[in-house]
C-alpha cells in the first residue's frame, strides 16, 4: 500500500512510530495527483508549495513530539470555504479571482490541528447541483467510471478521497451535497446537525440548510475529523453552544438492543434494483449486529423535494444578491450605468443553473407570492420536522438508501433540472429537519459502481451515527476495492 491510500488513523500510527514523515505522505499524495488528476479533475486549484511547506513544519513538530489530531495529514477543501490569500471561487466565474482576506473557521481549526491542505476541490457552481457538472471550471469525473458523475455538489471533494488524491476532505451539504457524492464515490460522508460546525467563512447558499462536514475513507476517520470540526463559534450566529463529545469513543461500540427505523416512504418505485438489494443485505447485517429493525413512517416525505425547491432558491436569491461587481469578484467590462453594470455582471458571471435558482427564488419571494410559496413551504417544513421527531421516539436511528440510483452518466440529466433534483430525494429531508446524517458504502453494482446507505439520528446525535456506521462497517466486511485509474 502507498501512503496516499491509507486512512488518517493508519498514517497517525506510522507518524508516531517514526515509520514515515509528513513530507513523505504529502509527496505520495502529489505523486498520485500527477498520475490521475488529468482524468478525474477533482481540484480547481492545487496548493503543492503551501502543502510541502506545511508538511515540513509538521515534521518539525513531530520531531519535538508535538503531534496533534491531524499533524501531517493531507486534506482537500471544497472551494466554498474561504482560505486566506488563496483564491476561493465557489465553482463560479463571478468569484474566479476572489482572494479571501480571512480563513473560514473550519480552515483555522484544521490548520491548528496540524492538517496539510492539498488544494481547493471542484464543485457545482455555488453548490447548486447534484453532479459537479455546473462548475465553471469543468466537470469532475467519478474515479470508479470516468464516464459518470461523482455526485454533487461536493463532487471534487468526494472524488479526491476516492481516488486517493488526498486522505480526507471537507464538503458542504445543503440538500445532500456531502452524502450523495460520498455514496456515489464509495466513501464515508457526514452532514452534521445544523449548528454543530461553524459556517463562518463558508460561502452562503441556503442559510437555514447549509452545513459543513467531512469525507473520509472510513468511519474512524470521520470521528477524528468531527473531533476537529465540531464546536461553538462566536463568529457564527447559528452556531450552537452544546457540549462536543469525543466522537472517537463511539467507534467499535456495539449496537445491541438498538431500534432501527426503516421508513416505508424511502422504498419507492424507481429505486434501482441493485441499490434496493444492497440495502436489504445491509439491513440483515444490522440485525445480525444486534439492531432490531422496525417499520416506521415519515408521511410527508413526498413533499420534501417541493419544499426544498422553494426554500433553497428563495434563500439563495437573497444570499447571491451580494454578487454585484462592486466589492469583489468579476465585473463586466461594458456598462452604461450602475443598473446596467449589475445586470451584465450577474448575467455574465453566473451559470445557467444558478440563474434558474435565483429566478425561482426571486419569483417565490416576490410581491403577492410569498404566502403561496415561501410561507407554505415553511409550514410543510414544520410538518416534515415533526415526522422525524415522532419517528425518533420509536427508534434510535433511521436507515435509508442514500440515493435512488448509482452514479449516472455525464450529461444524462443536464437538460432536465427536475430529473437532476430527484437524485437528492433521500437526502433533502435531513437538511429540512436539521438533523445529522451519514452515508457509508454498502456494496457495489454488478458493473462495479459504489452504493451508499444513509443513517439518520436526532439533533446532536452524531455519536450514534458514528457508532452504528462503525458497527456496520466492521460486521458487513464490504470488500475493499479501489478504483482502477
Amino acid at each position, binding site marked *: 500500500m502507498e501512503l496516499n491510500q491509507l486512512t488518517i488513523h493508519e498514517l497517525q500510527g506510522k507518524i508516531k512510530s517514526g515509520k514515515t514523515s509528513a513530507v513523505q505522505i504529502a509527496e505520495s499524495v502529489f505523486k498520485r495527483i500527477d498520475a490521475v488528476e488529468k482524468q478525474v479533475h477533482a481540484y480547481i486549484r492545487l496548493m503543492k508549495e503551501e502543502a510541502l511547506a506545511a508538511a515540513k513544519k509538521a515534521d518539525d513538530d513531530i520531531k519535538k513530539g508535538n503531534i496533534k489530531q491531524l499533524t501531517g495529514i493531507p486534506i482537500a477543501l471544497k472551494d466554498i470555504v474561504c482560505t486566506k490569500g488563496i483564491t476561493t471561487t465557489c465553482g463560479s466565474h463571478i468569484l474566479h479571482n476572489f*482572494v479571501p*482576506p*480571512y480563513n473560514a473557521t473550519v480552515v483555522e481549526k484544521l490548520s491548528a490541528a496540524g492538517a496539510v491542505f492539498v488544494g481547493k476541490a471542484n464543485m457545482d457552481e455555488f453548490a447548486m447541483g447534484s453532479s459537479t457538472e455546473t462548475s465553471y471550471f469543468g466537470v469532475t469525473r467519478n474515479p470508479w467510471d470516468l464516464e459518470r458523475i461523482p455526485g454533487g455538489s461536493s463532487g471534487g471533494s468526494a472524488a479526491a478521497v476516492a481516488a486517493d488524491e488526498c486522505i480526507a476532505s471537507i464538503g458542504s451539504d445543503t440538500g445532500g451535497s456531502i452524502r450523495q457524492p460520498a455514496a456515489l464515490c464509495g466513501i464515508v460522508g457526514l452532514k452534521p*446537525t*445544523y*449548528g454543530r460546525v461553524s459556517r463562518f467563512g463558508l460561502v452562503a447558499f441556503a442559510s*437555514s*440548510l447549509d452545513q459543513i462536514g467531512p469525507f473520509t475513507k472510513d468511519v474512524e476517520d470521520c470521528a477524528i475529523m468531527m473531533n476537529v470540526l465540531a464546536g461553538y463559534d462566536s463568529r457564527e*450566529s*447559528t452556531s450552537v453552544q452544546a457540549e462536543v463529545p469525543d466522537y472517537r469513543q463511539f467507534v467499535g461500540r456495539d449496537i445491541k438492543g438498538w431500534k432501527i427505523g426503516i421508513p416505508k416512504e424511502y422504498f419507492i418505485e424507481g429505486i434501482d434494483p441493485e441499490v434496493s438489494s444492497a440495502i436489504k443485505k445491509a439491513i440483515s447485517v444490522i440485525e445480525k449486529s444486534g439492531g432490531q429493525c422496525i417499520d416506521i413512517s415519515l408521511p*410527508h416525505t*413526498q*413533499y420534501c*423535494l*417541493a*419544499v426544498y*425547491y*422553494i426554500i433553497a432558491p428563495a434563500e439563495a*436569491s437573497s444570499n447571491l444578491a451580494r454578487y*454585484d*461587481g*462592486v*466589492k*469583489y*469578484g468579476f*465585473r463586466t467590462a461594458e456598462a*452604461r*450605468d*450602475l*443598473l446596467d*453594470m*449589475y*445586470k*451584465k455582471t*450577474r*448575467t455574465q458571471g*453566473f451559470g445557467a443553473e444558478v*440563474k*434558474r435558482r*435565483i*429566478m*425561482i427564488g*426571486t*419569483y417565490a419571494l*416576490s410581491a403577492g407570492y410569498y404566502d403561496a*410559496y415561501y410561507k*407554505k*413551504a*415553511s*409550514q*410543510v*417544513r*414544520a*410538518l416534515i420536522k415533526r415526522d422525524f421527531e415522532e419517528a425518533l421516539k420509536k427508534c434510535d436511528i433511521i436507515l435509508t438508501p442514500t440515493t435512488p440510483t448509482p452514479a449516472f452518466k455525464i450529461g444524462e440529466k443536464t437538460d432536465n*433540472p*427536475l430529473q437532476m433534483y430527484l437524485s437528492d430525494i433521500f437526502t433533502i429531508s435531513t437538511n*429540512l*429537519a*436539521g438533523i445529522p446524517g451519514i452515508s457509508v458504502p454498502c456494496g457495489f453494482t454488478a458493473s462495479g459502481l459504489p452504493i451508499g446507505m444513509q443513517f439518520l439520528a436526532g*439533533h446532536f446525535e452524531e455519536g450514534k451515527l458514528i457508532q452504528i456506521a462503525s458497527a456496520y462497517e466492521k460486521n458487513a466486511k464490504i470488500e475493499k476495492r479501489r478504483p482502477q485509474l
Partner: protein
Amino acid sequence: MISKQEVEYVAHLARLEIDDAQKDKFTSQLNDILLYIDKLNELDTKGVEPMSHAIAVTNAFRDDKVVESIGTESSLANAPDARGEFFRVPKVIE
C-alpha cells in the same frame, strides 16, 4: 403558470438579463418546477407555525467591544475598481 412576461419581470428583479433564445427554455423549465411545487397545495397547513430554522435560534449578542477587523486595505483589495478609501462604480445620476 408563469408567462414569458413574468419571467422578464422576475429577471429584472433579480438583476439578470435573459436573451430571447433563453427566455423560452427558462419559461418552460420554471413552469415544470413550479408545477411540481404545486404539490404542496394538496396539504392543509392551516394553523401550522412556519419554521424558519431547524433548531431554536436566539439572537447572538457579544459585548460591545472593539475587536480586530480586516481593515480598509484588505477590504478593498478584491475590488474591481477602487480609489482611495472607496469602491468605484459607474455613474448613478445623470
